[in-house]
């Protein structure tokens, strides 16, 4: 032990500490958890700074870049986000602990330093929330801005200093970055030094007189173990709860509902009833600020003690209620049928629910679109809506009678987004081989492009090709897809995808968009081998064989358009023999060498 003390750095640590200072019951180890969280945040944050672009135009793309191109980028971002939750939670509990075990009475200065740390942590967490600049964060921060503004006196000053004015724009994001990555951490570090210095000088707050003491080696080992456990929790959390960048901010329509980050949710819930209820958190903060003066020698005899407890329960309870709020800020779970929103159908339910069962799925589109026929007579005849439904080709949530739910719009809606216009052709791939029936010419040309350019050499297209999934690009808007195809270097730093000027031509772009989106649909993606390498590429006479060898009249009739994999998919998989076309990587050379 004395040997170890010779090291200069060890002078920062006391010789012994009280056993109770490290007991879970007394401290919940939240101080250590907060410190470890902060250290992880600093490390991952610095890494993220190398890739993040703090501007309205670049922020979102840099996040996508981080998630899809930067090695370990997605994990770093996830770790940063998860540790921030751990950090904020630990800070909260640590603060309440110091209030309730009345250490705020003995350690006045450290209590105020701690309050400063609390404020700075909230600032860090909140400014970090906007930085991904997607639909969720944009609107959550908008709501937060309005909440902050409604605080009397200090609100407007705060809005000016932190937000840089009354709206979320280019100035806000640069400013948040400055707060989040420079000024905020600097303040926290300074206060942390002061916080620890006070602790070192006076001993840990919960150490009583005459209790058992722990030696340096023993308590260092314990602190190490707790820190390791916190680190493990953060890493596991980061692995299991990875963040998912939503769509770009969409100013015309906020998501439903818009929720502030969880640590402000209680305040938001209170304010959604009446702005006057803002008094609750303000009063609570006032009590915390004045705690050393308000609490008497026996804190549990002071009314403030209970008032604080009441206010805390109100805020936490409100946060729980706020967490349960669903669409339209309502508490009831959406049932899909009774709930109605969106287009006003003169206040009444549709006259009756008209249901179609199409490919095993209930399709209720015709309840509202009563008697609607496809405008293309050919499709109307081949795929009548009363047997095939609408959603089986056009997507959407066919079960819902709620117009808002049934027609998921815009980018980032995943599987169930509506396919309309030329994109509807993407749905043909669900059942048919492209190019073998009317209407699929566009997709067929798209597939030729995919093969010619060698996309599967690097990307997973449908079920084929290497593992770089395209879905992050496909579920966003078409403009984004076009930008990435025409000049990927604009969006992604340091990767090898070449430019494809060919897609400046609108027609070519439409073709490949149909092909790529068609390949990403659930039905096509799940097949072991799908249209992209449809069998007819290698077995040009396969369809004729089908006519020859299949007895079923339906197969005979549709042999030109049905994919082999609808029946042979399993067989191909179990055969385990890679198709020579997949093996043949010469397509990959063409990616860079013409």
């Amino acid at each position: 032990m004395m040997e170890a003390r010779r090291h200069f750095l060890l002078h920062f640590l006391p010789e012994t500490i009280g056993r109770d200072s490290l007991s879970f019951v007394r401290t919940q180890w939240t101080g250590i958890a907060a410190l470890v969280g902060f250290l992880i945040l600093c490390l991952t944050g610095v890494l993220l700074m190398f890739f993040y672009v703090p501007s309205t135009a670049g922020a979102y793309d840099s996040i996508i870049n981080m998630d899809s191109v930067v090695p370990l980028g997605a994990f770093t971002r996830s770790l940063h986000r998860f540790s921030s939750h751990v950090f904020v939670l630990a800070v909260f509990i640590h603060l309440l602990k110091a209030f309730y075990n009345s250490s705020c009475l003995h350690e006045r200065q450290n209590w105020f330093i701690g309050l400063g740390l609390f404020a700075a942590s909230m600032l860090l967490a909140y400014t970090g929330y906007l930085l991904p600049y997607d639909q969720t964060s944009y609107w959550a921060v908008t709501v937060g801005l309005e909440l902050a503004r409604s605080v009397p006196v200090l609100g407007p000053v705060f809005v000016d200093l932190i937000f840089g004015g009354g709206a979320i724009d280019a100035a806000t994001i640069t400013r948040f970055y400055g707060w989040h990555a420079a000024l905020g951490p600097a303040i926290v570090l300074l206060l942390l030094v002061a916080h620890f210095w006070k602790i070192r000088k006076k001993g840990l707050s919960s150490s009583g007189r005459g209790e058992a003491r722990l030696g340096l080696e023993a308590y260092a080992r314990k602190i190490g173990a707790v820190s390791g456990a916190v680190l493990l929790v953060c890493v596991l959390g980061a692995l299991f709860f990875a963040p998912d960048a939503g769509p770009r901010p969409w100013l015309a329509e906020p998501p439903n509902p818009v929720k502030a980050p969880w640590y402000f949710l209680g305040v938001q819930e209170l304010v959604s009833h009446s702005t006057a209820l803002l008094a609750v958190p303000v009063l609570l903060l006032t009590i915390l600020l004045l705690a050393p003066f308000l609490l008497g020698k026996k804190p549990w005899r002071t009314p403030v003690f209970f008032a604080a407890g009441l206010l805390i329960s109100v805020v936490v309870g409100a946060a729980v209620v706020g967490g349960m709020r669903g669409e339209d800020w309502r508490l009831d779970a959406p049932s899909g049928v009774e709930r109605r929103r969106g287009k006003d159908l003169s206040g009444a339910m549709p006259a009756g629910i008209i249901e179609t069962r199409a490919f095993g799925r209930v399709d209720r589109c015709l309840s509202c679109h009563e008697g609607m026929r496809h405008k293309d007579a050919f499709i109307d005849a081949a795929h009548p809506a009363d047997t095939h439904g609408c959603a089986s080709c056009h997507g959407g949530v066919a079960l819902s009678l709620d117009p808002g739910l049934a027609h998921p719009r815009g980018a980032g809606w995943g599987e169930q987004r509506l396919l309309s216009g030329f994109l509807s052709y993407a749905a043909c791939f669900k059942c048919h081989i492209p190019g073998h029936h009317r209407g699929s010419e566009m997709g067929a040309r798209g597939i030729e492009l995919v093969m010619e350019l060698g996309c599967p050499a690097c990307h997973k297209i449908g079920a084929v090709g290497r593992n770089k999934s395209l879905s992050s690009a496909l579920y966003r808007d078409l403009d984004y897809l076009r930008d990435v195809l025409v000049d990927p270097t604009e969006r992604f730093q340091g990767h090898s995808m070449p430019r494809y000027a060919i897609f400046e031509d609108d027609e070519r772009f439409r073709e490949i968009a149909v092909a790529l989106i068609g390949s990403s649909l659930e039905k096509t993606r799940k097949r072991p081998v799908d249209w992209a390498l449809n069998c007819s590429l290698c077995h040009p006479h396969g369809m004729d064989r089908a006519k020859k060898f299949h007895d079923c009249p339906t197969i005979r009739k549709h042999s030109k358009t049905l994919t082999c994999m609808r029946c042979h998919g399993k067989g191909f998989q179990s055969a385990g023999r890679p198709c020579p076309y997949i093996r043949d990587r010469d397509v990959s050379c063409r990616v860079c060498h013409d």
Partner: protein
Amino acid sequence: MTTEFSRRSFLKKLLGTLWGIAALSGAYAAATLTPRKRKRLWRLADIPDPHAIAVGEHIWLERANVFVVRDEEGLYGISARCTHLGCTVAKEGARFVCRCHGAVYDEKGARVSGPQPKGLPWLAIERRSDGRYAVDLDAETPPGTKFRI
């Protein structure tokens, strides 16, 4: 210590000076970070072609965040910014609905239900000297003021 200017008093003065410098730096930083109050440089938001809006229809002006509605009596502008927490409201049939927290306004922008303190403000419409129509973002008018075109 025999000297008048002892180490202790020197350190005290130094500490005081440092605190002073810190306070000044804080004030300096706050002054820099407080944005200059600037007026919006544009007051009028152009309505592209009011005659193209069918009677009973509306358009949404993105930059100004305003609905321009046309009915039999004329043209009127209603702010699309929810008075609760600033989300953009949607026009659903005759009503305006805020999807964030369920605020509902009637077709005149008056409060129906929800957490919002007041209705959506109406904005004056004017005809500019060159014949174009515009919404005046600084001129709030009493509900019901419509501009005949």
